[in-house]
Each structure stands twice: as structure tokens, then as C-alpha cells.
């Protein structure tokens, strides 16, 4: 991978928190390296609690790395940046604003006309036309996530950081959201860094799947998924990529045993 040109560049990143005992340090991330190119769709998978979400929060500017080099677009990350928007698992849509007010949230400094146009455009793109004046509490979980994605797109974010955004949704909704996210990503040419514990989800979505190990987490391996989209979930290529990741994570494909990773 061409390190200098990558949009997101993480080298030898450590994250430690003070432990329960005095002086003890708990390492959550250890020597993590990651590169994401502009326009790429990268999924990070790993066992629950492995620190993949911590990594995303560091790249997104919400946490500070303990050690290492984290750069986005060539600059060290110093806090969150409007050019790169986080989509939260617990849903960060503001419940006191309507759908259109939420989507226009990042556009307050723009002229009213432009704001209106962008809001209308992205409401259409995420399939919420007709719900402009609705409040989030009147929407389903999937629709609320659509609002959050539209809010990031409307603000013209170059990068979307998605932290298990579909984790709280039911299975069918999740499948639809994945298909729509791919459609949006192809239309908008954004860079997406997507954290999930769902291996199938990762293989359905990503150009490249970064597999993390258990704590202290590091990148165990990367699996490139060179399959045309929309992906056929029964195709040999899909199954091979999926099984490869299962194997890296030390799991029998057929759900039998759990081996230790490395």
C-alpha cells in the first residue's frame, strides 16, 4: 500500500487506559497500522470489545492515541472535523429537530436556498421523501439511521466514519440499509470506514476487510474483497472471503470450535 498517498494513515498506534490497580496500564490497541485510500470502502471487524470502536474514535478525533502516528489527509488528527462525519451506533440524530432540520444541521452557514436544495436532494437519496416534517421519535430505527447518514452527506463530508451503524436494527432492515449504503457510496464517491462485528456485513460492503485480533487489538490480517456489486451472497468468491475471515478470527465456519488467535 502506498502509505504517503493514503487518506487515512495510522502507524504504530497504541491506546492504553489506566487499569484498576495503581500504575497499571490496560492496552486496548497495540501497534495498529491502517491505511485507507480516498474513495475506498473499508470495514474493520473483530471480536466484541476488541477496541475497533476505540480505533475509529481515535481516527475520528474523539479520543487521543496514547502513542503512534494518526494522520488524515496528511494532517495529524486534533479533534473532530466537519469534513469527516461520524455516524453513531446509538444514533446521533437530534430528537428536537425535524428530519429536514437535522439534515440541514451542518449547513447553517450556507445560504438558505442552497441549504434547502441540498436537504431536499439528500432526503430523496436516503428515501425519506414525505417525512421532511417528521420528528425522529416518529420514525423507525432504520429511518433514523438514514437521517444521520443524510445529515453527514448534506454537510458534504468527504469521509464517513460508521461505528456499527446498523447494529441495533432488525435483520431485514439491516440488509436494506447495506444495499442503500452501497448505492449511496457509489453515487457520492465518499470514503467510508465502517466498524462492525458482523463478518457477513463486512464482506457484503467492503472493498477491503481489516480483521482485528482480541485485546490488546492489533490488525491481524486484511482481506481484499474483489467482487462486483451488488454482491451475490451465494457466489463462491463471497463465501471464500467470508470463510477466510472466519478462519482468521479462529472460528470454524460451521460454528463448531473457537480457537485462539495467534
Amino acid at each position, binding site marked *: 500500500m502506498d502509505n504517503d498517498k493514503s487518506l487515512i494513515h495510522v502507524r504504530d498506534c497504541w491506546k492504553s487506559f489506566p487499569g484498576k490497580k495503581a500504575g497499571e496500564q490496560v492496552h486496548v490497541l497495540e501497534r495498529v497500522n491502517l491505511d485507507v485510500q480516498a474513495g475506498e470502502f473499508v470495514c474493520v471487524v473483530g471480536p466484541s470489545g476488541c477496541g475497533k470502536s476505540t480505533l475509529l474514535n481515535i481516527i*475520528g478525533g*474523539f479520543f487521543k492515541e496514547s502513542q503512534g502516528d494518526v494522520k488524515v489527509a496528511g494532517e495529524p488528527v486534533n*479533534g*473532530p*472535523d*466537519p469534513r*469527516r*462525519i*461520524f455516524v*453513531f451506533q*446509538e*444514533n*446521533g*440524530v*437530534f*430528537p*428536537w*429537530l*425535524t428530519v429536514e432540520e437535522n439534515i440541514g*444541521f*451542518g449547513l447553517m452557514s450556507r445560504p438558505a436556498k442552497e441549504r434547502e436544495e441540498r436537504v431536499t436532494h439528500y432526503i430523496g437519496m436516503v428515501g425519506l421523501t414525505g417525512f421532511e416534517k417528521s*420528528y*425522529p*421519535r416518529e420514525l423507525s430505527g432504520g429511518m433514523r439511521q438514514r437521517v444521520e447518514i443524510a445529515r453527514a452527506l448534506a*454537510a458534504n463530508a468527504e469521509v464517513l466514519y460508521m461505528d456499527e451503524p446498523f447494529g441495533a436494527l432488525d435483520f431485514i432492515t439491516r440488509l436494506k440499509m447495506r444495499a442503500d449504503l452501497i448505492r449511496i457510496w457509489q453515487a457520492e464517491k465518499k470514503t467510508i470506514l465502517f466498524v462492525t462485528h458482523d463478518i457477513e456485513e463486512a464482506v457484503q460492503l467492503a472493498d477491503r476487510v481489516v480483521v482485528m485480533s482480541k485485546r490488546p487489538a492489533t490488525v491481524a490480517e486484511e482481506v481484499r474483497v474483489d467482487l462486483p456489486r451488488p454482491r451475490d451472497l451465494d457466489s463462491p468468491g463471497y463465501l471464500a472471503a467470508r470463510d477466510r475471515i472466519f478462519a482468521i478470527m479462529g472460528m470454524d465456519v460451521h460454528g463448531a470450535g473457537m480457537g485462539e488467535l495467534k
Partner: protein
Amino acid sequence: MKRFSSVLLPLATAVIFLIVWHSLVRLSGSDLFPTPMEVVKGIQELFEKGLLLKYIVASLFRVSWGFGLAVVVGVPLGLILGWFKPAFQALNPMIQILRPISPIAWIPVAILWFGIDDTAPIFLIFLASVFPITVSSMAAVQNMQLVYLRAAQNFGIKGPQLFRRVILPAALPQIITGIRIALGIAWLVVVAAEMIAVNSGLGYLIIDARNAGKRYDLVVAGMVMIGLIGLVLDLLIRQLEKFDEVKWGYGQR
């Protein structure tokens, strides 16, 4: 069926209550404590003398000022205390000490400072309602969901914008709950303050009716008016919870 439970049930309770009240007065043979009918006549008498409206207006006037000032001071103060840690550390212990002191305990002090006029009860009402408003506003900010704050920061919102567009709206449902509780307390306190510090208002009516001729029909008439107006005030303030911008904060009902 729905109509039955929401209208007929409370009505039935009221009728039974009035019958029991009437019977107990008759059975006891008391000539001081009034029957419900005598109370109605008492209210009518107060109305015809022009006292009823005058006293209600006097009490509401004091509550409006004391409570209004408490909102104007308490909400911003609570937001600041909830957001700025040093302000919280400096002021919270003092607030927690002042808060449990009953407003009634302040009556002598209020008379000393302000004498016998409207200022003393207004001060007492302010004191009684400012703490619940401040504390609930403060807690609302402290308990605000982190995800809203992060989302706002991600869009580059900070300073006064952050307060206006995120912190205040996120805290508003809980602030309104605090305001509602405070109004109830304010109404309790105005009656107590008027018994001692002034010579008008519903509290004064009660104490005056007792002292000047043991007119217990007027005492109870005053109590009934206090209860009814308290109910109306609560119904009015509850309308605040119905705004679309805050409905999300009150669960599914």
C-alpha cells in the same frame, strides 16, 4: 368505556367525598366546620364582596413575579453549573446547603429585610422555586446524552452556538419538568407567606377569616380556591410538555 374511566370515575369520587364530608359534619353536630353547601355560599359571599377576585389576583401577582424571576435566574444558572465544572464545584455545595431550608424558615428574615409588603412573599416564592429549577437544569445538562454533543462537535459547533442549538434543546424536557415542580412549590409557599407577611391574598383570607370571627366556611372556601387554582396552574404549565421540540423527552404516552 374510555369516557367512563376518564370523566365518570373522578366525578364519582368527588360526589362520594362531598357526601361523606356533609354527613360527617351533620353527625358531629359541629357548628363551626362548614358543610360543602356552606362553603359554596362562602365562595359566593366572597365573590359578591369583590374579595375573591381581588385576593386571587394578589396571590397570582406574587407568584408570577417570584416564579418568573426564579425561571429567569434558575435556568441560565443551572445550564452554566451543568456545563462548566469549576462553576459547579464552586457553587454546588452552597446550593445543596441552602436548598433543604424550608421557605417558611425564611419568613422572619424576609419580613426583616423587606417589611410587610409584596416584596417579602415574592422573595420567598423566588427562593422556594429557584432551587428546583436550577438543580433540574443543571442535572439536565449533566445527564445529556454524549452522542448529541459529539455530533455537534463533529459539525464544528462550539461556544454560544453549542449552547443554543444543542445543550439547551437537549436539556429542555428536564428543565420543563423542574419548572413544573417549582410552580407547584411556589403556589404552596405564596399561601404560607401571605398568612404572615401581608394583608391580602388567599393565604391572608384564610388566616383572617379564622381570626376575625371563626368564619370556617370562608377558611375552607379559601382552601378550595387554592386547590382549584393550583390545578389550573398545573394544567397550564403542562402545555409546555406538548411542544414538538420537547415531546421526545417524556417517553411514550
